[in-house]
């Protein structure tokens, strides 16, 4: 029953209580106009879930690679006092390999034309 447990329970309870308060106090009169999706006054044209640009997928993949790099660097940051020279050189090799990969990606143009459509 420590304070973290109380906090952990209290936060969702407050959130659900606020939502319940809203549902209790608010009226609910749905009609046709309110329930359609918002398209600046027009009736919705074509389906809402369409294909989206490949750029977002590319950003996701890049984030994955670099975030895993950061994650693998975290143990090195706290253990610099107990890894001697060999640990440091392994860390540096890791960073240099990733930097070479980043240089290749930068110069190949994968980061440059993000969101710049060449046809439109």
């Amino acid at each position, binding site marked *: 029953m420590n304070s973290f447990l*109380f906090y952990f329970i209290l936060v969702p309870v407050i959130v659900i209580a606020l939502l319940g308060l809203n549902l209790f106090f608010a009226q609910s*009169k749905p009609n046709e106009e309110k329930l359609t999706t*918002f398209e600046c006054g027009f009736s919705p044209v074509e389906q809402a879930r369409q294909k989206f640009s490949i750029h977002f997928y590319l950003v996701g993949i890049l984030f994955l690679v670099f975030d895993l790099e950061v994650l693998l*660097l975290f143990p090195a940051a706290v253990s610099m006092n107990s890894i001697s020279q060999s640990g440091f050189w392994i860390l*540096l090799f890791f*960073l240099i390999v990733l930097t070479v990969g*980043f240089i290749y990606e930068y110069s190949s143009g994968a*980061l440059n034309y993000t969101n710049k459509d060449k046809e439109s």
Partner: protein
Amino acid sequence: MTINSTINSLLEALIVIGPLLGSIAYVTIAERKIMGSMQRRIGPNKVGYYGLLQAFADALKLLVKELVLPSNTDKILFVLAPMISLVCGLLVWTLIPYGKGLVIADFSLGIVTILAISSVAAYGIILAGWASNNKYSFIGSLRATAQLISYEVVFGLIILLVIFFVGSFNLTTIIESQKAIWYIVPLFPIALMFLIAILAESNRAPFDLPESESELTAGFMTEYSAFPFVFFFLAEYGAIVFLSTLSSILFLGGYLVPGIESNGLMTGLSLGFKTSFILFLFIWIRASFPRLRYDQLMSSIWSKMLPIVIAFSILIPCIVKAFEIY
């Protein structure tokens, strides 16, 4: 397990979460009044004395608004998304120390937990855009998520650079090790990049294209009406306050008062003062700069900031190892 210690624990949880929600509400009022002053007008001043009860008036108004669940949406995800954002935004506050040992949860892996929880908040944005069956919401949420995860990388790398000096993930240790000198002095360029990264993390001007009103009709928050909208609003301003606190912990010495050795009131006030300073910077930057276009935003992270941060992340371990200053 006495009843006294249970009441103590409950009180500890309440004295963190009560003023926290109040401070998030007052940041909204502060922002409106400060931006008004910067634009040669006064902000809201009708509701309380000097407009100080404006946030509560807004919350009460939104309390009695109708909760519209549009017809083609995924109703459960629609209501769940803002709750995920708000819960994750509030859960990280257990790790912030207000004095030496004055934390709710003194994890030895504090910083990693903070990164983890603030990355889960991105789920709320994705689900919000997907569940509201709206083209604008969807594109807005994709852009917001792409921006958020791009700046997560720089965020994580800069935190890593600070950890190289500290040697521990524990937040109290990070602050205690700044007794020699605050980390903004040796890491000044990195502190500037951190300030830019946290502006982008919280979808805040000049990086607020995902929620810009004129282009994407409020972005991923288009279909949200009453309290779910309040949740998103609270989550955004909560992220602003939390990131200000985090940057004052990492760079400005946290709760340390230079020259005075105390615990409790002085340290809490010191942390609040530094957080308020960075909050003022947030609002000042919002009032001063125009919005960045989306491809300028993306290229400024991947092409301009990330090479510098990777260069620093090769430099700092070399310095730490060469001069044995771990």
